Structures are given as structure tokens and as C-alpha cells.
């Protein structure tokens, strides 16, 4: 990666599920002058651990500092730059569009193409729910724009690494151990409710 090349990174941060942690992370970004493009937080399998997905824009130099500074926070357990590995990213959109009788069918067709769900209907509006990658969300917004968008809300990105992903498993697979020899996930002490 070129050092000067700034791009988007998706970072997964596992934190202690305590009050104040979100403001520690958000405060770190504002104090150091980094920009967060999106942030989403939720509990993991282990209720004492939360997972944040951050999207940050920056070059390799900035990213290295972001990751190190996140690590430095006492309540941060683990930081992974998912952009460095194979992963799935999704975002959800709720969007309410004007749906006059003449265009109702057309809106539903657009929705179908994007596998959107209609979650609320009135005589004059549709509210759609869509999930997908950022580009897909951007695309449906553009297609719906001509009908008149009343309101929309995006969740921000969530992301997860692909594949069976504990280090233990990777190492075992390299050694050619059969899959059945792997401990079931919940008993694996390294898995605290998240993909390592």
C-alpha cells in the first residue's frame, strides 16, 4: 500500500461493554483530528463485549496511528482492520418515498431489483428497508430520488470477516488436522463471541 494513498478502512473494535466507552472512542477521533465516516455499535455473543464497526478515511500512516491509539484505550480489547482481509460489509437503509398512484408499481419494481422490503405503506408513501453494500444503498437512493424522498436513515456499516476464522483454526487447518478435531466455538477460550 502506498503511504500517501488515502482510502476508506473498515475497522472492527471489540470493547468492554461499559458506559462511557463510546465517548472514549469518539473522543479519541475528535481529539486527534481523525474523521469517522460511520460508526455502529452492538453487543456480541458475550454480553460483556461490544463490537464497533468504524469506517475511517486515511492513508497508511493515519491508519497505523488510529489503530495504535484505539489499542491504547484501556477498554479496547481488540482492533482489526477488516480492509486488510476478506470480509463482508453491509449497511441497512430505511427510506420513505412519495408514492402517488401513477408511480406505485414502478417504486415496487425498483425495490424488487434491490431485494427491498416494504415495511410501511400509506395512501401516498412507501417505506422500504434495504440492506447491502454501500454502493448498493447509494444506487437505490439515486433511483428513488426522482419520486421524492421524504426521509431516510442509514445504519452505518457493519462488517465481518469471511471464513472460519480463529487463529487456532487456521493453524490447525495448516497442520492438516480434520475439522472435527476443532473445539466447538463456545468452548474455544479465544472466542469471546466474535470472529477473531
Amino acid at each position, binding site marked *: 500500500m502506498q503511504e500517501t494513498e488515502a482510502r476508506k478502512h473498515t475497522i472492527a473494535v471489540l*470493547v*468492554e461493554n461499559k458506559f*462511557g466507552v463510546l*465517548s*472514549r472512542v469518539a*473522543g*479519541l477521533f475528535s*481529539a486527534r483530528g481523525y474523521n469517522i465516516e460511520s460508526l455502529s455499535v452492538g453487543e456480541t455473543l458475550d454480553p460483556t463485549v461490544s463490537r464497533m464497526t468504524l469506517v475511517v478515511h486515511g492513508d497508511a*500512516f493515519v491508519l*497505523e*496511528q488510529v489503530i*495504535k*491509539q484505539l*489499542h*491504547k484505550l*484501556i*477498554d*479496547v*480489547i481488540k482492533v482489526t482492520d477488516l480492509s486488510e482481509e476478506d470480509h463482508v460489509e453491509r449497511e441497512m437503509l430505511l427510506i420513505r418515498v412519495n408514492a402517488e398512484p401513477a408511480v406505485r408499481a414502478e417504486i415496487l419494481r425498483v425495490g424488487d431489483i434491490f431485494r427491498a422490503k416494504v415495511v410501511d405503506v400509506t395512501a401516498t408513501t412507501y417505506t422500504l428497508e434495504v440492506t447491502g453494500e454501500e454502493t448498493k444503498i447509494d444506487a437505490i437512493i439515486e433511483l428513488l430520488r426522482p419520486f421524492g424522498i421524504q426521509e431516510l436513515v442509514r445504519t452505518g456499516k457493519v462488517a465481518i470477516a469471511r471464513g472460519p476464522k480463529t487463529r487456532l483454526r487456521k493453524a490447525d487447518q495448516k497442520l492438516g488436522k480434520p475439522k472435527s478435531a476443532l473445539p466447538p466455538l463456545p468452548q474455544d477460550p479465544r472466542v469471546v463471541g466474535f470472529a477473531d
Partner: protein
Amino acid sequence: MKLSGARIVLECLKREGVDVVFGLPGGAVLPIYDVLHDFKGLRHILVRQEAAAGHAAEGYSRTTGKIGVCLVTSGPAATNLVTALQDALMDSIPLVAFTGQVPTHLIGNDAFQEADNVGITRSATKHNFLVKDGNDLAANIKEAFHIAGTGRPGPVHVDLPKDVLVKEWTYEYPETVHLRSYNPTYEGHPGQIKKAARAIVRAKRPVLYVGGGIISSNASPELGALVALTQIPVTQTLMGLGAFPMADPLSLDMLGMHGTYYANMAVHHSDVLVAIGARFDDRVTGRVDAFAPHAEIIHIDIDPSSISKNIKVDIPIVGDCKRVLAKLVEALHEELRTYPASGVREARKQWMGQIAEWKRDFPLRYEWSDEVVKPQHVVQEISNLTNGEALIVTGVGQHQMWAAQYYRVKHPRAWCTSGGLGTMGYGLPTAMGVQAGNPGKVVINIDGDGSFQMNSQELATCFEEKLPVKSVIINNGGHGMVRQWQRIIYKERYCASDLGGSPDFVRLAEAYGCTGIRVTRPSEVVPALEKMIATPGPVVLDVWVDKHECVFPMVPAGGANIDMILAPPSVDVRDKAARSQTGF
């Protein structure tokens, strides 16, 4: 065992081996003071303003190696304390600061003397706690001490709501701490250490650049062993002074903005620069693209985020300075077996010759005067009279730089200054804490008239608590460093840098029950210093110095270290400053 929260706090302090607490009571912490009334084995030092409690704890911590503790009330007390917390954070000083808080049911209610304490201190501390449940109290305090003192040390703040202090809770002090999210790295990576050893052994123009990390990890003996083995010259940062004896022939003294010419030249021309427990602060590097341009940089630091933050590092080693240096010395012995020193002997000899030349041609210097006292002279005489053995504290400004340049610090943990934050007013309260931790030792606060006045109320604490701090005020009738910049960079347009209305410091000292002495002529300096040291109790020595004196050498902010100004600048330099894109 059931105890009130207030008693639990004090029992925990006892278990942590705390013997002094710097504090100032108020509504929210009165339950603690009520227990303190007949609590045995804990000395409480009552300060006059809360920031002083924080600074005193810093001084105590820096010189004793223990964790400093302060205790203040809610709201305004907590906000007053913030400066000291940020100061300790930037200089990696371990503190545990307790603040009171309004009762939990009133939090967020804009109650009397309420502030969002943890919200405010979040970015000024290594970590902080709001104890909402008294069952967590002992564990949180244990964690606070653990976090403050381990890894890269720093201040930890514990916020204590009043109801938590009043109610009774089951008290059990945890023996151990386990924080799954906090595991500092102490041992350096063996492969990296070996790489560093290879580079050091092959270096033709090596320099060691050491900082406060050496002091924090008590690594001076290991540093000494490294220097003894390799004979590499050592330059120290402002925070690192004392890590290596400044009188040693291999000492290059301080580097950076007001560092010595020879230190900056040596770093600039080095081919291997070994940074140990230092963080490439902008006051050290000057313009980063012109800093040590030819050097392969080895960086040993316990904080991974310090590495490659300002300057790209070639061989990073994350770990505790003490342990890494011990391993590095072993690795060097090993390396020297396969790569004998003779390979670079000639080049190293030339390098030492070059350094000796710089030292001879461009030493620290100032012009002597028979009429007016030169500030550098005062510091030199303090250094001579105490033989570099006193515990020195400074304020912030010109006098701080002169103290760093001219006081020959001999030992680690004998030098306290506000390096990162540059907190004026740091001197007197910090010296108080130093004295409390080191009874019987000579503690000298080298201060400025501007800096001293930011916390001069603490003379009352010194008097009352029998802390015989000696304050030497380098009195140039103004904010000297501001004046210097206005002279050099702002074309002599002096603005708000004179302090015409300063009090008579001798009478001020006497008003507080301390001894005041004044010096106005060079011939009086030495006798006055002798008298000051011989006088029991706190003393203020007011030395009227040349107000036009500037700190040299100087790298203008934003300039490169190689472009040091050695003497008062010519018109040419001023023009260059005016044209500078960085605004100096």
C-alpha cells in the same frame, strides 16, 4: 467486612502503600475527610488550590518512584485539577486522582458543584472511573493504581459520588488485577533487539537519544552499561535529564529547540540514532523532514503509539526500557564476537573527534556582566553549590531552559519539569510534593517571576506543612520567553509581556511566614544562594536579572535543528522568520 465507602477509599490507599495525600476538602468529599480525622498512617497535605494538589503529587511521584495521590472535591475542584492531570499525562507521570461527585441520584441534574468530571478528564487521563456502585469501589481503586503505574505510566482519575462514600459496602481488597483489554508489552522482541545490535555495532556515527522513559523505568544503570560497552555519546531530552550524568564526557546534554549545538549537530549527522524512552516531540525534532536525515532510527518505547508517530522508525522495539536495554547489552556482546569493533574503530574515532570539535567551538555561553546578574550565572552557581545533587524543580519559560542547560543533573529522579504541557506555575507546588516525598533533602525550585505568580499561594502550604522548599525567582520583570519571541520573531513589537505590577517577592515571602532574600548584583549571587540553602524553612530568593537576556542556542519553531541561532539574531534571521511559511 462492611465499611463506609469513604473508609474503603482510605483503607485501599493504605493497602497500596500510600503515605501522603495532597488534597483540599469540599462538600462532596467530606465523608472521606471525616474518616481521615482520626485515620492513622496517612499524611494529608492541605494545598491552597486544587491544581497544586495534582502538581505536588506529580513531584512526589517523579522523585520517589511511587504513585502520587491527590484528593479534591467535585465541580470547580475537579476542573481546577485538570491542568495537572493533562500535565502528568503528557509527561507520563503516574498519579491517582480522586474527585468528589454529587450523589448518584443527582448526577446530570445540574446540582450544586456538579461537573461532568469523567467527561472532562477523559482526554486528560490514561483512564478514568466513575464509581456508581460501592461494590466496585475497592476493585476500581486497585485497577486505578495498576493502570497508573504499569505500561506507559500516567494519571488515572476516580470520581466518587457522595452517596457511594456515605453508604456501607462489603470491603474486600482484591489481591490481583486482571484486565483482559490491558496488557502492556514489557519484553522487547528478540529479533528486533538483535537487528538493533547489528546496526549499533556497525554504526560509524551513532548517537543515543534518551528521554523520560529511562527515568520512569529506572533504566539508568542499564543505560550506563550500554554506554560503557559502546562508548556512544548520549543526548537527553528535557524529561530525560538525569538519566545519564551530565558531567560525563560522553554527555551531549540536551537536544532540541534550546538544546546544545553539539547535541543537535551530532543527531543531525548521525548514521544510527537510538531513541530510548523518548517520543520525538516537536520541540526535539524541529522540522521533521530535516531531522536526522542520514540516520537509521532505532526506537525503544513501551508505548506502541509513540513509534512512527512523528518520525518514521527503521527498527522499532516495543518494551520496557530497562528490560530491553539489558537484553540489548547482551545482544551487543554477542554481536561483537562476530563483528569486532575494529571494523568501525577509525570512523568512530573521527566521529568523536568531530563531536569534541563542536563541543569546543560551540559550547553553551553567555556574556558576563559586572553590572547586572545574568540568569545563566545563577543556575550555574546553584549547580556548583549543590554539586548537582539537589532535587531541582522548574517553572516554565526562559528560566526553565537555562536550568536545563546549566544545571548539571547527576542522578535520575532529581529533575522535575513540565515538559510536554509546559504548565506555568508548575514549580512551587511540584517542589512541595518533592519535599514531602524526600524529607531532609535540598529541594530547589528554579522559577520565573511570571511562572511563580501562577501558584505563589502555595507558600502558605510550604509554611504550614513545614516543607522547606527553596525558590529561586529568576526575575526579569516579565514573561521572558514571550518577550524573546516577540523580539526575535515579531519584530520587537512587545505586547503583554511585561509584568510591571509584580509584588515585592521578599515581602510576599515574609507575609507567608517564609524567608525572603533579594539579589540585584552579580557579586551577591553566591552569598545569597549559600544563605538560602543554610536557612531552615521555605525561602524565596528574588534575583533581579538582565531582562534582555535570551535563551540561546535556539531553533525557531518550525525550523530545522541544523539552522540553530547561536546568538541574538541579525536582521537577516528576522527577515527569514518573517518569510517563513510555518509562521515559526
